[in-house]
């Protein structure tokens, strides 16, 4: 029971991070129907920018942790958004209207480029970060086994929930969100109503990148080490999460992220750590066989 509870806490935390990245995949897929394979790298850049920003905070003497965290968060979101925007502008927009695989290939190229770019700039070695947020609660104790919930885990889950809620609200209620959904459903018509479709697409990349930056910050805080390669596996997992939840669906991405986090954590806890990725991807295969649109993705029922 105690062990289970601890794994649940860990799984939810990991799921929150995956969910934040998955939103970027699902949004871009929803609006232009392509898998942005460079999105994992955007997350990795978010992690690096966070790390560098933390070092800067130390240099300029901002030591009050909440302020430092907030500033790092903002810096990471801004820088990473610029990367997201630029990737779309350079690698995808010129290919819009060409054959379907072109942007996909371009995305893979962008992914490789960004990995190497960070490797050259930051080196291939693992970068550590001193623990920033320490401490936590002991939820329960039984014998030697302590179930702990760290402050960091609380922060990660809280920030994720707040971000996802406000993000869902933006998409559901604001004119900006309506423009996003309009472009998702019919780009030609959206333009015929006066929407600048290119800008709306850019905005989807920027929003996805900003959320990936938050995930990057959490990753670096949670694991304490990063390298130029973290975007690959995290990206694939988040992509899996998005597909599992139903690609194109925002709640689906969140649910998928949570599930992948939980599956991975519980598999590692009760079976073998080595096969945790196999477990996550096997679930994906099963879902796709029995429910090809994902858990929350709905098949289109539209009158003509």
């Amino acid at each position, binding site marked *: 029971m105690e062990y289970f509870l601890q794994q649940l806490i860990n799984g939810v935390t990991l799921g929150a991070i995956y969910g934040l990245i998955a939103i970027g995949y699902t949004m871009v897929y929803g609006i232009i129907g392509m898998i942005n394979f460079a999105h994992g790298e955007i997350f990795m850049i978010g992690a690096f920018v966070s790390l560098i920003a933390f070092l800067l905070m130390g240099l300029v003497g901002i030591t009050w942790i909440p302020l430092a965290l907030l500033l790092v968060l903002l810096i990471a979101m801004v820088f990473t958004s610029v990367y997201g925007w630029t990737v779309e502008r350079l690698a995808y927009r010129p290919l819009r209207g060409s054959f379907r695989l072109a942007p996909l290939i371009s995305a893979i190229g962008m992914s490789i480029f960004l990995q190497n770019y960070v490797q050259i700039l930051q080196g291939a070695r693992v970068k550590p970060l001193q623990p920033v947020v320490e401490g936590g609660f002991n939820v329960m104790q039984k014998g030697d086994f302590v179930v702990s919930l760290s402050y960091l885990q609380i922060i990660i889950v809280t920030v994720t929930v707040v971000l996802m809620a406000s993000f869902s609200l933006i998409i559901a209620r604001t*004119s900006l969100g309506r423009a996003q959904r309009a472009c998702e459903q*019919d780009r*030609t*018509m959206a*333009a*015929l109503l006066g929407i600048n479709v290119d800008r709306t697409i850019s905005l989807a990349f920027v929003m996805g990148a900003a959320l990936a930056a938050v995930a990057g910050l959490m990753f670096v805080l949670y694991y304490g080490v990063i390298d130029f390669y973290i975007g690959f596996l995290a990206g694939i997992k988040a992509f899996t999460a998005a597909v599992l939840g139903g690609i194109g669906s925002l709640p689906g991405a969140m649910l998928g992220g949570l599930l992948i986090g939980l599956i991975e954590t519980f598999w590692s806890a009760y079976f073998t750590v080595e096969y945790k990725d196999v477990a996550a991807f096997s679930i994906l295969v099963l879902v796709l066989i029995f429910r090809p649109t994902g858990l929350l993705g709905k098949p289109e029922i539209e009158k003509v």
Partner: protein
Amino acid sequence: MEEGQPTRPDRPGPPNRMSLLSVSGVHTYYGNIEALRGVDLTVNEGEIVTLIGANGAGKSTLLMTVCGNPRPARGTVRFDGRDITRSATYDIIRRGIAHSPEGRRIFPRMSVLENLQMGAITGDPAHYEGDLEIVFDMFPILKERQSQRGGTLSGGEQQMLAIGRALMARPRLLLLDEPSLGLAPMVVKQIFNVIREINEQQAMTIFLVEQNAFHALNLAHRAYVMVNGRITLQGTGRELLANREVRAAYLEGGH
């Protein structure tokens, strides 16, 4: 030009005859297919102008070309005195054109109300409530169904929604592509009444593409006939209604 037959007088033209939309020498291609082969056409402020023609004549292409999607290969499109030939679609729309396009293109996974809100994005927010009321008065069914998803509406309701959505922009020029397509005769009548109403009451300029030539010619101040991407005939609505070629090609054996 305004002289019709004595027994069936022309609808009186609006006082203002400034050209609002002028299309000259426009050629548009879809790939290698030349869909428009040098179209010249004018819509004056306050008029209802209709363009009739068979399926595939290029009517819808002309409306879309006015909106900049696709762009014409040659020729110019001017709106309100400005050359908009090379402008982006959203930019053209923001100058005061609204289009209710072929196939209606209702956002299927948005509510009826959201679809109408989408129409209002280029408009002045101060007019939003009032315009919504006008649209709901015109099409009470839309008010009833406002929280329903657009994709679940019937064809006629979708057509009303498409027109309502275009009206929400308070355009200076309203483009309507086959508003009567696939609708029951009663609904067709209602839609044509609405078009006349908005033209008369809001002084909105309307450019209407129709296959239902009888209704359209009756309604329009002026009309054009398009065949294979070219304008072959033009005149007042009444003139074309009386024209032998038009009668043979578009009016006999129906309506």
